């Protein structure tokens, strides 16, 4: 029986993952719990005490839970696509071993994307379960947002893989993480509607796929109307995934087939 080549990469990722899964279980479950406790319950109590016109009768916990689900998928995707590509080329060097077999750089990329997709399904489902346990939404609705959160993550996974293959220095990677991931997270609309931002920042926040993902998840879980039509949102995320995939394919080929 012949397995398609990208799935052989997924298989290898899984074999490697079995060695390191303990650490990821902690982040998969602990991250949603910590965020919902600190932000939803802690900060939320303070916010809910003053009734406000922005959130209406939705509690803060219910408001941020879907947003955090999308933003959390983004974080997982970024971690899973950046360092593995980096170390695959530079430190673990497994990419070099892989391309000396029948695998191509395209196979490595497709395999990585499938692997991240599977990881995002798990992480987002775990997040949905935590949302439900916290009583922030009914289980069915939280679960219905898993595809949207997964797509949000994928919209970051491929561009990040492209960047990780393109950037030469590790210090550049670290700087990128430090100065872009946190703003992406904070201004994604997960914590507050982006129309609360200063006017000049709003278009910047809208460029990030995170905001589109947050909007989608919120629409599915708590029925807040979308700013843009649903297909525009989905299309935007899909376009980011496709553009990133194309760029990552190019960069990986350029780096590996020298």
């Amino acid at each position: 029986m012949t397995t398609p080549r990208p799935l052989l990469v997924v298989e290898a990722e899984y074999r490697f993952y079995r060695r390191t899964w303990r650490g990821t279980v902690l982040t998969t479950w602990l991250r949603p719990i910590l965020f919902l406790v600190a932000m939803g319950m802690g900060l939320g109590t303070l916010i809910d005490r003053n009734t406000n016109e922005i959130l209406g009768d939705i509690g803060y916990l219910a408001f941020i839970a879907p947003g955090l689900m999308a933003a959390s998928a983004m974080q997982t995707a970024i971690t899973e696509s950046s360092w593995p590509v980096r170390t695959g080329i530079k430190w673990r060097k497994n990419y070099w071993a892989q391309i000396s077999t029948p695998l191509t750089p395209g196979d490595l990329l497709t395999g990585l994307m499938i692997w991240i997709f599977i990881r995002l399904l798990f992480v987002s489902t775990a997040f949905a379960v935590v949302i439900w346990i916290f009583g922030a939404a009914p289980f069915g609705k939280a679960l219905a947002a898993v595809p949207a959160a997964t797509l949000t993550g994928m919209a970051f996974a491929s561009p990040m893989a492209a960047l990780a293959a393109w950037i030469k220095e590790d210090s550049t990677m670290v700087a990128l993480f430090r100065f872009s991931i946190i703003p992406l997270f904070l201004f994604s609309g997960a914590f507050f509607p982006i129309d609360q931002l200063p006017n000049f920042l709003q278009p910047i926040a809208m460029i990030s796929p995170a905001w589109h993902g947050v909007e989608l998840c919120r629409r599915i879980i708590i029925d807040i109307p979308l700013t843009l039509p649903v297909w525009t949102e989905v299309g935007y995320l899909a376009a980011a995934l496709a553009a990133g995939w194309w760029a990552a394919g190019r960069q990986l080929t350029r780096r590996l087939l020298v």
Partner: protein
Amino acid sequence: MVESLVVGRGLSKNFGEFTAVDNINFQIQAGEVFGFLGPNGAGKSSTMRMIGATSPATSGYLRVLGMDPMTQGVKIRARLGVVPQEDNLDRELSVYENLLTYGRYFNISRADIDLRTSELLEFVQLSERRDSRVDPLSGGMKRRLIIARGLINQPELLILDEPTTGLDPQARHVVWDRLYQLKQEGVTLIITTHYMDEAEQLCDRLVVMDKGRIVAEGSPKALIERYSTRDVLEMRFEDRDQERAMPIIVKVAVRTENLPDKVMIYTDNADEAVARLSRRGVHPISTLIRRSTLEDVFLRLTGRQLIE
């Protein structure tokens, strides 16, 4: 005539302005051990990567197992074994898991890999380390594991890029021994090395590369005959005696090299040359008589200047 396993004609590889491989021609026959010999930066590794179908040639003709690496890389790599210069084993995984992971990339079933793994670990003398992690293994063990890994798909052609660089003498001999056995089994081997003894021991035929070009080609024996003499005399002198002896030495030698610490005298009959020099009053403090080696050929062709 049987088509050669690997054919390169007018093959070149540029990296921007830099020409790593400059218009080289070679043919490698099935069953032979073929060497690419040369100093660092001669273009050996670049040539290896082109043959390994992981590096597109800039220009020229290249066929590996009758196929074009540019368009049929996947099929070529399925039938190749590659032992890279740089160790890219998965340090976190065990010896067995490394072979399993790599074997699966070739779509070999798990059952077949298990069978093959025990044979291969036996072959490279690592059976007892099957389940230990790779990280703590010695350099020689890692190298043997990479060789085993390169053989997992039963390749027709095994490409080894400096297989013994950085190994201690015992480990080198174990590797040579294994490679020699592979040759006996009919596996075609392509080896790059800058160790002359390695090339002399293993290679049926080799090319000497320098600055991206092939500067000589043939069997180790033929190369020595053509580019060196049968014997070499290495004479060391007291301070100024060397300069005084040179005019006499030149007359009895086929070729000489006047080095700061000694004179190399190339001759086809060392004993006779020593006697003649002695009769003419040349008295070194030490004389070493030895047979010519590939190293003499190599140094003659690529020079003594340090290339960096």
